[in-house]
């Protein structure tokens, strides 16, 4: 059992000012521009949608557990996978990752708030409105022929299926508008993050002394500018097609369905890197602290992250290997996709080298980080399989791809997120999450994860396409689908344990103090939770790990940097 970190007298232990109660609390949160409160709102909001979208997934798995099932109708199923995907990407992934970013960045760079606090609040509320708008479609989406309700065009909404003639009613418009809102909010937050990181670092914190989390969120935000806008543009074009009769994707008038695909994936692929880079960020903070060693190769990690950011903008058409781009096009995108694996691999090896020679403490955040490391490795390797275009001609649009990207989204990103929760919850609330419940959560979730997503690869290899509401017996798919469904239920139990832990620990968790993990970055130098002004005195730093220097005056980082 690790010794608790000594609380240095120098560390600010200010208790936060008393909160107002009753209706005052509601007003306080609704009108706040404090990055910490906004961050928490993003996170809570995302958790609610996580539960909704998770329920949608469970319903789908029940429908697919046996062949020729009649648990839900095809129309309901098609809405389920559309809503599940759209919710998870835009209203869980983005908000929760930017929520953590919002909370942590000012604290990690020694600032008092983000660069534009009101823009921060605006970005949150417009994103929140987008999510509500998407779910409003269930009630309000009816159009002609009663063809309405939630969108059912898939989360990437390929043209011309989204044209007015093939998707009458307003369901597609709910998809378009809600995600447009989300895009505006995301762009606003990205602007805020870049301006904060460039302009508000505390004295002494040069760019090369920033925590890697800050670097990764900086790169992510820059990617947002280049990546989210194409989707916004494409959605404007789609809406013009649907309402003003323009012909952007109208194949009858000479328009191109492939053009939508290009625009969408120019957004879509960087988007998944926008989702994964913050996960890398969490791992970059957690692994060193729980291995008791500085991150191996800080500069290489920065270079690799920037490299991933750039290269990932050039790989998009690997989602389009089957549309007939021709050998030249296909070959280019094979190359760029394979190349992006190099900086990604570098990160993997640097994490390994950080652990090597360390003293690993297997507390809950680290357990999730370890899960991330193995699972991200596998996800990356199945990605390499998919990058070989001819192999992709078989695997694309099959359950193999679904398994691959869930391996990234759940096995890597969600695991990193769980680690982040256990790691920073004490900072945000002042209390520790229960280690016991944390371990139950971990084991249930990882068993369920592997039951579902390991075996999900197999129906893909046996020819099962995605987005089908049922399938025939005799293809060899049925038993694997049943196992996948069982895993989903096990994961649901794990998630429920997690949610319970969140709530229970808020009231009963052990008091954390400012630095429960014996960590080294600036957020641990202030009280838990921090006062609204973050730091009593704006810090001045002289190295990458200011608290390490404080705790190890005989061997400070500044002598090595």
């Amino acid at each position: 059992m690790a010794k608790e970190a000594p609380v240095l007298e120098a560390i600010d232990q200010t208790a936060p000012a008393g909160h107002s109660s009753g209706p005052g609390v509601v007003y306080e949160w609704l009108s706040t521009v404090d990055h910490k409160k906004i961050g928490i709102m993003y996170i809570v909001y995302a958790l609610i949608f996580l539960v909704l979208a998770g329920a949608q997934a469970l319903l789908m798995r029940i429908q697919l557990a046996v062949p020729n099932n009649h648990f839900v109708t095809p129309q309901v199923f098609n809405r389920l996978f559309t809503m599940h995907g759209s919710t998870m990407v835009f209203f869980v992934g983005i908000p929760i990752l930017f929520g953590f970013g919002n909370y942590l960045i000012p604290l990690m760079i020694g600032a008092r708030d983000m660069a534009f606090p009101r823009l921060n609040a605006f970005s949150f509320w417009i994103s929140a409105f987008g999510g509500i708008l998407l779910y409003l479609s269930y009630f309000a989406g009816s159009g002609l022929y009663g063809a309405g309700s939630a969108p059912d065009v898939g989360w990437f909404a390929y043209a011309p299926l989204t044209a007015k003639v093939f998707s009458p009613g307003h369901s597609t418009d709910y998809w378009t508008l809600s995600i447009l809102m989300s895009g505006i909010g995301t762009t606003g937050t990205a602007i805020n993050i870049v301006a904060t990181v460039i302009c508000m670092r505390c004295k002494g914190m040069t760019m090369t002394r920033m925590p890697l989390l800050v670097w990764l969120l900086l790169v992510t935000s820059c990617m947002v500018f280049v990546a989210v806008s194409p989707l916004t543009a494409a959605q404007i074009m789609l809406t013009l097609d649907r309402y003003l009769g323009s012909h952007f994707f109208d194949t009858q008038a000479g328009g191109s369905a492939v053009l939508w695909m290009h625009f969408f994936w120019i957004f879509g692929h960087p988007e998944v890197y926008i989702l994964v880079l913050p996960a890398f960020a969490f791992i970059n903070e957690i692994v060193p602290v729980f291995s008791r060693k500085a991150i191996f190769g800080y500069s290489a990690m920065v270079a690799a992250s920037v490299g991933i950011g750039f290269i990932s903008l050039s790989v998009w058409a690997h989602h389009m290997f089957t549309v007939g781009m021709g050998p030249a096009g296909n070959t280019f995108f094979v190359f760029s996709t394979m190349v992006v694996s190099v900086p990604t691999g570098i990160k993997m090896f640097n994490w390994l080298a950080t652990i090597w020679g360390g003293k690993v403490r297997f507390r809950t955040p680290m357990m999730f980080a370890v899960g991330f490391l193995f699972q991200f490795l596998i996800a990356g390797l199945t990605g390499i399989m998919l990058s070989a275009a001819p192999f992709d001609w078989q695997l694309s649009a099959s359950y193999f791809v679904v398994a691959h990207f869930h391996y990234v989204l759940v096995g890597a990103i969600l695991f990193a997120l769980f680690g982040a929760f256990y790691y920073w919850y004490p900072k945000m609330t002042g209390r520790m999450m229960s280690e016991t419940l944390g371990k139950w959560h971990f084991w249930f979730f990882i068993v369920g994860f592997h039951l579902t997503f390991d075996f999900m690869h197999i129906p893909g290899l046996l020819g099962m396409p995605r987005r089908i509401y049922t399938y025939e017996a005799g293809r060899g798919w049925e038993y694997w689908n049943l196992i996948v469904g069982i895993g989903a239920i096990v994961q649901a139990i794990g998630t429920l344990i997690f949610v319970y832990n969140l709530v229970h620990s808020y009231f009963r968790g052990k008091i954390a103090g400012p630095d429960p993990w014996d960590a080294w970055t600036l957020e641990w130098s202030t009280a838990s939770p921090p006062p609204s002004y973050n730091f009593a005195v704006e810090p001045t730093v002289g190295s990458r790990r200011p608290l390490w220097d404080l705790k190890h005056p005989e061997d400070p980082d500044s002598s090595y940097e």
Partner: protein
Amino acid sequence: MMQTPVTFPVSVDAEAPWVLPNRGIVGMWCLIAAEAAIFMIFVVAYIYYLGKSLTGPLPSQILELPILGTICLLSSSLTVHAAVSTLRKGKVQRCTVALAVTVLLGAAFLWTTAAEWHHLIYEEGFTIRTNLFGTTYYSLVGLHASHVVVGLLFLTVTFLFSVSGRLGEMHAERLEVLSLYWHFVDAVWVVVFLVVYVLGR
């Protein structure tokens, strides 16, 4: 109870003056990056669909070079620059004049676009749904025009602040941020002009 200030071991270089860029300028550059990406997509769509219309008029048949509008818009970049530099020197009166001229030039540009569209729609019968050229033309030029409108709104509000004496030398950097946006709008027009009126015809 007094809070203990935190001090970390620092190296000598931290004693040098710590100057970071202005966040308004950085934020505006980020917005410009995002907006540039949106315009890029509409430009790509325009270029991709050149020559692919199945029916309807071609650009060479109905488009004329918008010389007057272009001169107005590009000159307004000069006047807004003048507004910023006069405000920096504290010459608020001159700044007010410069802002007014900028707004007028921008409005003149919008007027020429409106006139062009009126002609195209009512006399040539050419709309967004006529063909692919119509689709890409109106959306690209329209997107640009909407950005001009937003810029003019901000500039007008600033002008009103200036006229009512609320604008001072301390606001110079904020005006510079706004002028950056305006320069961007002009730069986009240069691209649109070249792609639609020069290349496309």
